[in-house]
C-alpha cells in the first residue's frame, strides 16, 4: 500500500466510491464520488495534533480495533498507519458537523491550518481502459448464530478482535487478557463459524483453519493457556501449511474433532463450550476463560450493487463470478473488468497477492495491445426492419444497444454485446439477428432433428 501510494503512475483516491460506470473495454467512463474529509491533504502532515485536540473525548468505536477501543471524531485511520497518512474528520461523530456545537479546538491545534469544515463532496470523472475490482470481503457477524452467545460476554470474541488483542498496536499492546485483566487459563477456539453451515454459508471459507491455528499458537506462546480447538476438518491447503499444523499439534493444543455446538454464559460469567467429539463419539463440555469464534469471510453486503455497477455477476455464495473457475479466474464476463482478491472468493494473503498480480498484468497487457479481440457471436440490427420500439434497449444486460435518434433505429455496439440473444428473442419486428444463432439456423436444426422417421 505504501508503494502504491508513492508510485508516480498510481493515483490513490481514498474516501471515495465509484458511483457510475459506462462505456466498454478500452473506453470506460467512471464517475467517482469523493467524500469530504474536512482536511486539506496537501497541507496535512499526519501529526495527529487534531486527534489529540478533538473535544469528543468519549469518541466512537474504533473500526480498526474491531470496536475494542474508541477513537475521536478527528483521527488518523488505522491507528495512525493509514496510507496516505492524513487525518480525517468523521462527519457523523464530529460535534460541529453533526450538531453544530463545538469549540473547534482542532482548528487551532493544527499546525498547518489544514482543517476546513467547508469542504463538500466532489465528483471526479475518469476515462479508463480497464477496471480491476478489488472490493474485498466482510467478516461474518456471529450474532447471526445465537448459539455462540457472541456479545453476551466480553470474553467471547471473533477472530479479528483476537488479532487486535494480540497486536502490539492493539488495545492491550499485544497482551492477551480476559475481561478481568488476567491471562486466560483455558481458551476454546471454534472453527467454521458462519461457514460449512447450512444456517449461514455452505461454502468453506478457506482461510479460517490456518488463522485459527495461528491463534492457537499465539495463545500457547503468549499465555501458556490450555487451548481446545473444535474443528470439523483441518484444511491446511497451502505451501508449508500442513507443517505449521503439525507444529501447533506439537505445542500441546488439544484438537477436538467436532463442530462447536453451543457457547453458554453462566449467571456468574463463566463460559461453557459444548460440542461433540466425533472421534470418541461422546459429547464434551468444558469450562473456559475465553472463546475465539473463527468467523467466515463473506461477500460485502453491498456486493449486489457493486456487481450491477460494473456489469459483473455473482455466484450463489455472493462473491463475484469469475469468467471460468479454472482458466479465467480473475476475468469477468464484462470485457475489460477484472477481479482481484477476496471479492471473487475467500482467499489468504499469498493467493490474494497472486490473484491481484495476475489481474494487474492482464489489465496492463490489454492496454498495451491497443486493440481487442471480441467474440463473433453478437447481435446485429437490420435497420430496414427496426421500427424503433426500443424494446431491446431495456432488456440488454450490458447496455450494448443504443437508440440512434437520426435514423430512428436501435444499434448494437459490438464491443459491448456478449451475444446472449435476449434482444433477438424479444424483438417484435424480428429485426435483430444473433450471429451463429439466428432464427433460421435454429429452425433448420429443428427441422433436421424432426425429420419423419
Amino acid at each position, binding site marked *: 500500500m505504501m508503494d502504491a501510494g508513492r508510485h508516480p503512475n498510481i493515483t490513490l483516491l481514498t474516501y471515495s466510491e465509484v458511483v457510475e460506470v459506462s462505456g466498454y473495454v478500452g473506453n470506460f467512463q467512471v464517475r467517482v464520488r469523493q467524500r469530504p474529509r474536512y482536511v486539506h491533504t496537501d497541507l496535512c502532515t499526519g501529526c495527529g495534533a487534531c486527534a489529540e485536540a478533538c473535544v469528543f473525548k468519549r469518541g466512537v468505536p474504533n473500526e480498526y480495533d474491531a470496536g475494542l477501543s474508541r477513537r475521536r471524531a478527528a483521527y488518523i485511520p488505522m491507528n495512525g498507519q493509514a496510507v496516505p497518512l492524513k487525518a480525517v474528520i468523521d462527519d457523523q461523530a464530529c460535534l460541529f458537523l453533526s450538531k453544530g456545537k463545538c469549540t473547534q479546538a482542532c482548528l487551532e491545534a493544527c499546525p498547518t491550518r489544514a482543517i476546513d469544515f467547508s469542504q463538500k463532496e466532489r465528483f471526479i470523472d475518469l476515462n479508463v481502459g480497464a477496471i480491476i475490482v478489488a472490493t474485498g470481503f466482510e467478516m461474518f457477524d456471529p450474532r447471526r448464530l445465537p448459539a455462540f452467545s457472541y456479545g453476551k460476554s466480553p470474553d467471547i470474541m471473533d477472530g479479528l478482535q483476537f488479532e487486535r488483542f494480540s497486536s502490539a498496536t492493539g488495545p492491550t499492546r499485544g497482551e492477551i487478557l480476559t475481561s478481568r485483566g488476567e491471562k486466560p487459563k483455558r481458551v476454546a477456539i471454534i472453527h467454521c463459524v458462519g461457514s460449512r453451515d447450512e444456517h449461514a454459508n455452505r461454502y468453506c471459507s478457506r482461510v479460517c483453519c490456518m488463522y485459527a491455528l495461528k491463534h492457537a499458537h499465539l495463545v500457547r506462546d503468549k499465555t501458556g493457556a490450555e487451548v481446545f480447538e473444535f474443528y470439523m476438518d483441518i484444511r491446511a491447503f497451502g505451501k508449508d501449511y500442513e507443517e505449521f499444523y503439525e507444529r501447533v499439534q506439537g505445542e500441546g493444543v488439544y484438537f477436538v474433532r467436532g463442530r462447536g455446538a453451543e457457547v453458554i454464559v453462566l449467571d456468574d460469567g463463566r463460559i461453557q463450550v459444548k460440542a461433540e467429539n466425533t472421534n470418541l463419539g461422546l459429547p464434551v463440555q468444558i469450562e473456559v476463560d475465553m472463546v475465539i469464534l473463527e468467523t467466515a469471510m463473506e461477500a460485502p453486503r453491498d456486493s449486489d450493487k457493486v456487481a450491477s455497477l460494473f456489469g459483473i455477476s455473482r455466484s*450463489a455464495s455472493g462473491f463475484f463470478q469469475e469468467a471460468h473457475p479454472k482458466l479465467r479466474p480473475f476475468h469477468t464476463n464484462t470485457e475489460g473488468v477484472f477481479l482481484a482478491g477476496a471479492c471473487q472468493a475467500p482467499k489468504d494473503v499469498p493467493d490474494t497477492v497472486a490473484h491481484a498480480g495476475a489481474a494487474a498484468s492482464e489489465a496492463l497487457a490489454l492496454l498495451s495491445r491497443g486493440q481487442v479481440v471480441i467474440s463473433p457471436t453478437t447481435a446485429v440490427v437490420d435497420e430496414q426492419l427496426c421500427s424503433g420500439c426500443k424494446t431491446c434497449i431495456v432488456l440488454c444486460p450490458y447496455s450494448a444497444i443504443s437508440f440512434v435518434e437520426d435514423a430512428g433505429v436501435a444499434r448494437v455496439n459490438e464491443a459491448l454485446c456478449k451475444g446472449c440473444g435476449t434482444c433477438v428473442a424479444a424483438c417484435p419486428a424480428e429485426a435483430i439477428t444473433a450471429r451463429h444463432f439466428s432464427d433460421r439456423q435454429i429452425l433448420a436444426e*429443428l427441422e433436421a432433428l424432426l425429420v419423419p422417421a
Partner: protein
Amino acid sequence: MAEEFEPRIIAFVCNWCTYTAADNAGVSRMEQPPNVDIIRVMCSGRIEPTFILKAFALGADGVIVSGCHPPGDCHYTNGNFKTFRRMPLVEQLLAQFGIEKERFHWGWISGAEAVKWAQLTHEFTEQVRALGPLNWKQELESKED
C-alpha cells in the same frame, strides 16, 4: 407385440449451465435416453416461444427448456429472468392449443448438476412416453386440407 412408443424430445439449453451439465453427464458416462435431442443456444433468454411451438408443429412429443439457476447463475447476468417470465406464458399458450402440460418442461440445471440432467431426461422421457404420441404435425396438416 406392438413396438414400444419412442417419444421425440427437443431440449433447448443454454451454453453455460445446462449444456455444460449435459456435456458433463456424457463425459461422466451417465446413462441418458436417446430420445432427447439438444439444441444449444447461448442463453435461455434467446429461446423464443416460436421455437417451442415450431418443435411441436414439426413432430416433437415433448420440449425441455433449461438454463442457469436464478438469481445469480446466469452467465449474462439476467437472461434466465427473461426465461422465467416468458415460459409461464408459453405454458398458457400450450394449454390453449390443447397440448398437455406434461409435454413441456422448463427449469434450471447448473453446469455442476450433470446427475440432475440425466435424471430429468429419464423422467421426462418416461412422462412423455406415458402420454403417447402428440401427432400435432398430422393434425395441423389435416386441418390445412
